[in-house]
């Protein structure tokens, strides 16, 4: 027990007190010095502040230098990441651009097709002219529902023209005078309008009831019954009476009566009519011809766009190929540049070797001449020539003796 304690003490003493070889300071001394520094710094000793400032000056400068490799590694890594991100972004944007381009082309094609189809639908009936008129008299006879307008043949009002309240159909012109005209409302018992019921596109004939609504005749009854929803009523355009698609009113599901009678509620309130629009629709063959031309034009445009799309694809492919070629050429260029640099280096080395050889040859020549002509140039007791290894001596040796003066 005593021995082990002694060993411990000896080891401690040896560790802390014995100065090892090449150790200039004692460990214990330095520990004490550190403790003294700590104690002094706890008392805010002023000299320590100066010491701290001095060390700071060294540390900050040295830190900058020492951090260079780490900063370089970190910045390189960041830059590499950025480059990769840039590349990824570029690829993403490229894809998006291609997609958007194709979408744009598709959109143009769809728009043109839409225009073409619209033209096809609309070429049958085209609005010819529109005349606005004031309602003069509203005849409210139970047998005749009609209004009198303040426009007549003087204002190009013709028989059969449609009369609209805003966009809703209210009737048709049945009598034209020079300054006035009479309109038979669609609520009249004698008004028979070919209509379409939406959303199921059911064809029917609507008749007036002499009141503020109409009633459907000759409709596909079963089908209407099955649908448990309101039906919208438009002109069908059949019989070339009106343009198709003029809104009239709607049939509420509760208005479909037990005896299959379907009551049409008009959008327009006929008792409140003050101003109406008289419109005529007619078949216009010229327009049709024009439309055909336009359609052909549109077809051509579509074809051209398709062609452009194909060309774009081909160009993109070509671009890809040229990119690859460019990269290949760049690589080859790099290799050639490296070769050139290597050759230049080799040339420099060779030049240096030649220079060295030349110097060597000169030296050999000098030594050879020295052996032969040293007695002619060397200073001896008997002559007054040149000291060995001086510039004059060397000159004399190379001149194979003294220079003869003329």
């Amino acid at each position, binding site marked *: 027990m005593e021995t082990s304690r002694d060993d411990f003490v000896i080891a401690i003493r040896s560790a802390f007190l014995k100065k090892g070889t090449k150790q200039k300071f004692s460990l214990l001394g330095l520990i004490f010095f550190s403790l003294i520094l*700590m104690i002094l710094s706890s008392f805010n000793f002023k000299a320590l502040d100066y010491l701290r400032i001095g060390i700071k000056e060294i540390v900050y400068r040295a*830190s900058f230098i020492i951090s260079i490799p780490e900063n370089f590694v970190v910045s390189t890594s960041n830059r590499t990441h950025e480059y990769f991100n840039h590349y990824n972004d570029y690829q993403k944007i490229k894809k998006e651009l291609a997609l958007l381009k194709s979408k744009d082309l598709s959109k143009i094609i769809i728009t043109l097709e839409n225009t073409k189809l619209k033209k096809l639908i609309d070429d049958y009936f085209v609005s010819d002219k529109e005349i606005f008129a004031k309602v003069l008299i509203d005849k409210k006879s139970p047998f005749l529902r009609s209004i009198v307008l303040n426009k007549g043949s003087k204002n190009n009002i013709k028989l059969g023209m449609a009369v609209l309240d805003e966009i809703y159909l209210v009737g048709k012109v049945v009598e034209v005078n020079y300054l006035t005209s009479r309109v038979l409302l669609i609520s009249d018992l004698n008004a028979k309008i070919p209509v379409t019921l939406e959303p199921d596109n059911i064809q029917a004939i609507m008749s007036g009831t002499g009141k503020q609504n109409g009633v459907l005749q000759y409709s596909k009854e079963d089908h209407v019954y099955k649908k448990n929803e309101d039906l919208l009523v438009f002109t069908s355009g059949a019989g070339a009476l009106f343009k198709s698609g003029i809104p009239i009113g709607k049939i509420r599901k509760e208005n479909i009566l037990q005896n299959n009678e379907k009551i049409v509620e008009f959008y327009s309130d006929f008792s409140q009519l003050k101003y109406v629009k008289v419109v005529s629709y007619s078949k216009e063959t010229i327009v049709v011809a024009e439309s055909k031309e336009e359609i052909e034009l549109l077809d051509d445009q579509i074809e051209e766009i398709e062609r452009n799309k194909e060309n774009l694809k081909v160009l993109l492919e070509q671009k890809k190929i040229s990119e690859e070629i460019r990269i290949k050429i760049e690589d080859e260029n790099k290799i050639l540049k490296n070769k050139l640099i290597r050759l230049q280096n080799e040339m420099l080395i060779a030049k240096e070797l030649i220079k060295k050889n030349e110097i060597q040859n000169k030296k050999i020549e000098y030594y050879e001449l020295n052996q032969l002509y040293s007695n002619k140039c060397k200073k001896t007791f008997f002559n007054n020539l040149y000291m060995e290894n001086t510039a004059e001596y060397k000159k004399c040796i190379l001149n194979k003796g003294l220079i003869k003066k003329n």
Partner: protein
Amino acid sequence: MKIINKSQVIEFLYTYFPAILLFASVLNEFDFNYLGLKYFSFNFSYILIFYFSLKKPRSLGYGLIFISGLFNDVVTDTPIGVTSLSFLLICGFAAYLKNITLRPNLIKDWIFFLMTISVVKSISYIFLTLFFSFQTNYFEALINITFTFVLYLFFCYLFSLFERIIIGRSDA
């Protein structure tokens, strides 16, 4: 002109490598903080000082260790002398281990290193808390000690590898 040959470079590296590394670690706070790992910190200086005080006491002078401690105090803004004391205590522990060891064993060194850093850190925290009223995060200190302890083996391997590469043999 004096030509610098390969053996001189090797000798220079072999002699001054620990000192250069110690100052670099102290000035640069060599702890991989830039990796941004939340619970990762270790004290490379402790590993370096312990390893070289144990294996090659001649390569790291006490004076240099003392000065590096002062530098570390300035860098970390701790009171002057605290780190120097810690470093020198580690040297003392290593010297003691060297004196009592007849047959070196890496695992024993490793365990002793754990004890050393625990004691040294405790002493340093006692000083900082009692005399300088420093706030100490004990959890972070524990993590630091743990990683320093764990990474000792890895750095031992690296240092011995360096020696093998430089002088062709290792004493470790």
